[in-house]
């Protein structure tokens, strides 16, 4: 079993940006997008997210799996819950409104009525902009951020050294544990173990995973004692930790951090001080259904 990280250097503008600035921008987008249902603000945040995503120079092939996951989520939340059942709009969209199909419509020779309102349809658009804005900035992180940078990034963002180092160390263990997992799987298969055999009831099927998970977990625990001893012998935790992978701010990183702070402050001010927090439908949207 080969484990490969999705990150590779693409010589993109995003590769030149400090990971700390990137996390700060991503969280500014998250809080800005979730602070309001105002269409203009959401559209502005969405455009910023699209620009940010384009800086990563990611191809569809790279991120296909992540987008498939988001599509399933969007389908459930928007198509099923907001458009078809109307449940997803509850609490945000006021009851009533203008019907999209006031006289119903014909399907396969039958006359059907559908309670979808113009307001609910706009809510679906707003929800789409909000979720996509957040998804665009967060889905790209594993593809565009070097795995060596996580530990030092979180340490420099204020996480205690031991916690940051735990994160760093877990990256290091992944290939080893993946190899152990494969060796265990092969060894159990050689003994007649069948993970996907169709026999047995529900509980038996679940218990069938045990011969795989138990040896892998117990081996990992036993070997971790040696690692801890080796770290203690080398004086782990005695002094403030230094990191092999150094981070350095450039002027553009400061500019991104300042922009993120301004963006968030502006959105919060507009939403909570100038009454632009609640859901509203633009006039032109009604015009489309007149």
């Amino acid at each position, binding site marked *: 079993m080969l*484990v490969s990280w999705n990150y590779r250097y693409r010589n993109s503008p995003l590769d030149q940006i400090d990971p700390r600035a990137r996390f700060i921008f991503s969280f500014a987008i*998250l809080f800005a997008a979730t602070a309001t249902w105002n269409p203009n603000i959401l559209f502005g945040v969405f455009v910023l997210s699209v620009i940010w995503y384009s800086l990563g120079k990611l191809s569809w092939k790279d991120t296909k799996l992540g987008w498939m996951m988001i599509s*399933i989520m969007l389908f*459930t939340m928007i198509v099923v819950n907001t458009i078809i059942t109307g449940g*997803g709009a509850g609490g945000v969209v006021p009851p009533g409104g203008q019907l999209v199909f006031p006289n119903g419509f014909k399907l396969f020779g039958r006359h059907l009525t559908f309670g979808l309102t113009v307001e609910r349809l706009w809510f679906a658009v707003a929800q789409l902009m909000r979720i996509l804005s957040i998804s665009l900035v967060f889905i790209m992180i594993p593809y565009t951020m070097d795995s060596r940078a996580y530990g030092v990034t979180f340490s420099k963002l204020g996480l205690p050294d031991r916690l940051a180092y735990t994160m760093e160390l*877990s990256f290091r263990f992944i290939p080893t544990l993946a190899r152990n997992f494969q060796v265990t799987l092969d060894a159990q298969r050689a003994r007649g173990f069948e993970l996907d055999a169709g026999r047995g009831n529900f509980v038996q099927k*679940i218990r069938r995973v045990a011969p795989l998970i138990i040896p892998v*977990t117990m081996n990992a625990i036993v070997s971790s004692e040696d690692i801890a001893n080796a770290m203690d012998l080398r004086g782990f935790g005695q002094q403030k930790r230094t990191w092999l992978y150094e981070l350095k701010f450039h002027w553009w990183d400061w500019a991104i951090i300042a922009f993120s702070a301004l963006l968030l402050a502006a959105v919060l001010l507009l939403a909570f001080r100038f009454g632009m927090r609640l859901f509203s439908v633009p006039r032109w949207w009604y015009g489309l259904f007149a």
Partner: protein
Amino acid sequence: MENTQNKKKIWAFGTNQVVYAAIGAALYAVVTWAFNVWQIPGAGNVGIRPAIVIPMFFGIAFGPIVGFITGFVGNILADMLSGYGFWIWWDLGNGIIGLIPGLFSALIYKYNETKSILLGELSVILGSAVGMGVASLSELWVSGADMHTVIFANFLPAFLTNIIWGLILLPVLMIAYAAIVQRSGR
């Protein structure tokens, strides 16, 4: 008698805990990634994860901090390996799934006793309820989903699959770990 004399320091975070947490997180990521083919379609992308027992078990065995990091960091790594992106609120939920069994670890000394196993099972239910509850409720704020969607598309599929895996596999892991503890005199 022995139990009261050697009280566990469940909030300790020394070198051993750093390594256990790192190993736990890596293990959770690898096993999740290996099983990621089992997805429940149309249920808020909630995967069937046998690996969810790993943060629960690491919490029970090594305390709440190790349990939390195993779930939190492990979920970040698993999503990175699988190409699913970075979803901090679900990572937090997975962390809580390890943290709550960790709180129960103070009451567990012999891992193969019926009482310990029952406490472990209780912690699985509580941990999954709170962890997936927090993660699912975050969707109210993040996605603007309503409570019905949050409960039926996010919370219930994740909660039910987690407790099924946890309730069945955690006792097996605890009994296996009891043998290791006994053999190595830990």
